């Protein structure tokens, strides 16, 4: 993981203690092979994670310390603001714009041609699909954390 190595006190781990296979799926499969590896940069996916946390009012377990990937505290603090005003490169703002379409609160979420072209300027189709798939897991997991009452906040 990209984290500092400190234990994660997220209540997910206590709730899941009797299902270690599910913890393994999150910590030893999804996180290292999709969230941290894959085609799109881990920094981009971590920015996305921070925005989805802000939009959904949850904190994800075990996804590491953003500062390890060069995300400054100032960037992390600003991540919930309007995407186009964020002091980030266009390649990262385009991904966050896709994140806003994926947010569960956006019932009309849709990647239109304009957004696709913004993304395609920086990522190939495999990376765009991977980003979408990563967000699928993160958004669904956010819903689960809220429904199960373990937002981690």
């Amino acid at each position, binding site marked *: 993981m990209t984290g500092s190595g400190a234990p994660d006190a997220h209540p997910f781990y206590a709730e899941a203690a009797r299902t270690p296979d599910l913890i393994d799926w999150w910590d030893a499969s999804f996180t290292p092979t999709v969230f941290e590896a894959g085609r799109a940069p881990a920094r981009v996916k971590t920015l996305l994670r921070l925005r989805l946390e802000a939009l959904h009012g949850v904190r994800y377990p075990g996804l590491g310390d953003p500062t390890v990937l060069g995300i400054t505290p100032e960037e992390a603090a600003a991540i919930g603001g309007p995407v186009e005003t964020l002091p980030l490169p266009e390649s990262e703002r385009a991904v966050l714009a896709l994140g806003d379409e994926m947010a569960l609160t956006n019932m009309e979420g849709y990647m239109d041609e304009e957004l696709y072209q913004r993304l395609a300027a920086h990522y190939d189709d495999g990376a765009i699909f991977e980003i979408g798939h990563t967000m*699928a897991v993160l958004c669904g997991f956010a819903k689960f954390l809220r429904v*199960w009452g373990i937002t981690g906040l």
Partner: protein
Amino acid sequence: MFLDVDYDLGPFSDAEKAVLALADEMVMTNHEGRLSDAQKAALLSHFSPEQAFELAMTSAVLTGMAKFLFVFDLVTREDSCPIVRPGETPTWRGKDDE
């Protein structure tokens, strides 16, 4: 918000109805979804804590993948689908909207 059917009247066991109640909380159209103590107790009366937790995590992936399929336009939208593209109006109205 919900389909115009009542699974309580359907051919489902109490265990299955408890799982369907979980699904109603997890569905993406239910922005206030939260499993109540009574709903959790109903689940745990039929499933072990491990099974109930697994069901919830499974529904997490299903819910997230559904959102992904809609945003990437990888799924056919049925007339009954309340999730529309920007600017479109749902043609379907659930019983809660009447």
